[in-house]
């Protein structure tokens, strides 16, 4: 037991250290050390300003953490069993993807992206949008995150499906787990193997990617990093045999919907211009 937590702890620690250092490096490069420093004095008033979004996001995460197991039971009893339907629909696409493109180097890259790249992708926008003069972008981002999680949780309850590696064990190698069993300890702690539709890895990454594109005038460097990274996460979910193409398409649709909704719900405060509205006006 203790050993298991020790493994988990070491994975989490490593994850935290690598995320923080990546954020620092990319932060200095794309935001600049001066503005980055401003985050410190900005932090307290910013948190006060963002109170509703913080409450929203934290409560969605809390509900997800507390209710997930119970909702899983609901899903088992009343959910739609869609594994067979998804497989009948898209067939062996994921197996083909792996068979065609898998090399050890790519596997290493996509495994890294799936775990570490993804966490960095999700954390960094807090830094980047936190140093901005206006708070609208960060509000929108957090609203979009919360929507992603909330809708994802509903979908996981309604749909009961296993991922490709569980259906095509011979064709789809569980690359991530084979290469890094410690990661397995982490992912199995937070993920049910029936929560595949939609792919939240995809939807959250695409959400960050879309925000990066929308704020490209402010942070051209970040847009250049985030877009390929988000795309890599999207590909990684299928390459590693974790998600179906259908999950990924649904994830992308969810991301577009959430970003759109966050823009509809949250308009810039009076007198504030956000980077993207400014560019839209030009």
């Amino acid at each position, binding site marked *: *037991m203790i*050993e*298991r937590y020790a493994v988990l702890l070491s994975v989490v620690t490593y994850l935290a250290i690598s995320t923080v250092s990546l954020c620092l490096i990319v932060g200095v490069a794309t935001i600049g050390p001066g503005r980055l420093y401003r985050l410190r004095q900005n932090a307290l008033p910013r948190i006060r300003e963002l109170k509703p979004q913080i409450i929203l996001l934290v409560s969605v995460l809390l509900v997800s953490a507390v209710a997930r*197991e119970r909702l899983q039971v609901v899903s*088992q009893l009343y959910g739609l*069993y869609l*594994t*067979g*339907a998804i*497989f*009948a629909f898209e067939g062996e696409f994921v197996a083909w993807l792996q068979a065609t493109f898998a090399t050890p180097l790519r596997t290493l890259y996509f495994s890294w992206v799936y775990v570490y790249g993804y966490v960095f992708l999700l954390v960094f926008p807090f830094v980047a949008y936190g140093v901005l003069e206006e708070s609208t972008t960060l509000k929108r981002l957090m609203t979009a995150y919360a929507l992603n999680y909330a809708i994802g949780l509903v979908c996981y309850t309604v749909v*009961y499906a*296993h991922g490709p*590696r*569980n*259906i*095509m*064990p*011979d064709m789809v*190698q*569980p690359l991530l*787990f*084979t290469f890094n*069993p410690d990661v*397995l*300890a982490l992912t*199995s702690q937070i993920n049910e*193997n*029936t929560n595949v539709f939609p792919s939240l890895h995809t939807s959250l990454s695409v959400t960050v990617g879309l925000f990066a594109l929308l704020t490209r005038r402010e942070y051209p460097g970040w847009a250049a990093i985030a877009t390929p990274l988000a795309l890599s996460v999207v590909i990684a979910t299928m390459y590693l045999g974790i998600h179906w193409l259908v999950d990924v398409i649904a994830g992308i649709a969810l991301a577009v919907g959430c970003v759109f909704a966050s823009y509809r719900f949250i308009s810039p405060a009076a007198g504030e211009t956000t980077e993207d509205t400014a560019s839209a006006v030009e």
Partner: protein
Amino acid sequence: MTPSPATTRRAVIAGSLAGLGTASAGCLGRVRNIAGREGSTQMTLDVYTTPADADPHGIRVARHLEEHLRAVGIATRVNTMAEADLYRRVLINQSFDIYIGQFPAHQRIDPDALYPFCHSEFNPEPGWQNPFGITDLTIDDLLEEQRGATPEDRPAVVDDLQREIARQQPFVTVVFPDALTAVQRGRFEGWRRDERVSKPMRLLSLSLSGDDEGASGTGDGETTGDDGSERTEEATAETTTETTAVDGPSADATLRLVTTDPRVAENRNPIAAEYRRDGTYTELLYDSLIRTRGDDRIPWLARDVSWLDEQTVRVSLREATWHDGEPLTAADVAFTYAFLSDTSMGTADAPIPAPRFRGRSTLVTGAEAVDDRTVDVTFADAHPQVGLRALTVPILPEHIWSERTEVAAIAGIEVDEQTTDALVWDNPEPVGSGPLRFVEASPGDRVVFARNDDHFLDRGPEGVPADLRGKPAFDELLLNLVPSDIAAVEHVADRRADATVSNLGPEAVPRIGREADATLVSRQSSAFYHVGFNVRNEPLSNPRFRRAVAGLIDKAHVVDEAFQGYAQPAASPLANADEWLADDLRFDGRDPETPFFGTDGALDVEAAREAFREAGYRYDDEGVLLVREP
């Protein structure tokens, strides 16, 4: 799924009705005759099994079958679900077309185990009782006949029974898998190549390694040989262990097992069919009157069993207490047999039998306590040797289970009159009398059992083989749940576990060879993989159709591909019991009864389709197998 050409053709006919109709009045009657008929559509079958994480083999068999079903023009969907969900669907709700599963046995199969499996009497009952819904007089007669037959006559009856089952194929016996296990060297001794590791008796007879360092070179006392044969190397280890056990096991004597099966962490009810695989842990928690090992019967809770007459045995019990301190008496034994055949204890309109142990509970007509320590058990019309099987059911405490006899209700509403509280109870804190007692469980994570120091094994009782006296040698059994077979092997390799108990797949096995500390133990298991058909519904109610489907499975190829050779193809559910297997059902390179349409896994599609045509099915011009629209 996909609209068949036939359906579209029908729509076209309907659409052009007006035009055709007006063209000629005489034609109207003809149009009515055509359009009035129900059209045909493609046949659809749903195949259910567990995902690869839960069992690496079932899904591979399912995919093999699915591919070939599609090839012969049947729309097939493979649905995966967790064990408890799968078996709730198949065994309790009986809502499936085809399932792929393992026979729930860890012992060599006695032919009588087929009695509940195939007898029509159990058709409406939930559990591993006739999950197929086969109702056949010939099979019923043979099942009854083998129960009463003398030892001389029984083999011939059992041969006929196997032939009849093979002919009708209510299920396809696919393979007998090897029970592969990764075992860590040097901590415990007594793992044997020839026996499944998770057998309760095997776990109980393990002994601690004499010294931790030097043990890896000694081969762990693994011996090969037949079931029930004398142990050789182990005998030397025993003397040392016995003293250790009596003095109290050393501080780190925790036996750590890993499994992918999460069910025992959620539910520990010995009679809940959907939560039990073969009942290893419930057998360690609950004692039975006798235990079997190979061909030996070991007097367990029963100190002695003597025949009063042809049908009745008198059982005298050992001193035993329940884990909660209450004494175990003959009344508990009498209660158990009554309870297993009717969990409502006579309060429901009709008996509600326990869904497990049905074959054995139907062997008993009554059990009566003579005094506190003596009970008389009366058998049904069966040969004494078969009847004794009934003494291997777990004995349950009356003071716990007699409170669970009411019809189950959710918030006061009775959902189903055929279900008692006892069947749906999670039994969170099981009170048994067995050599292990329950300590704690956290779902999705682990289960902890502790050695029961009050158990009679600790007192080195008479009648119990030497290797079980003073056992178990561990003072705690820790069962860790892991997400996949690969993770299970990693646990053993990293010295975080002593052995794996769930199935290991083709990717996991080579890893064992690469790890210095892990060793592979294997033995042909009785838990054969089978393809079960729901014969209650069309088209699987048709034995010709079932035989054609059976011919789509290349069992030898499945062994090579899905099991990497760690299995034996089989044509009879008794294939691993040499003395029972019918000679003409021996798998000799090909299946003797339903040979594969093709060679080396490659299906001869035309030959297979011809078999379906011969069974009376039709194809459209695009090769779609047609059925009447429902």
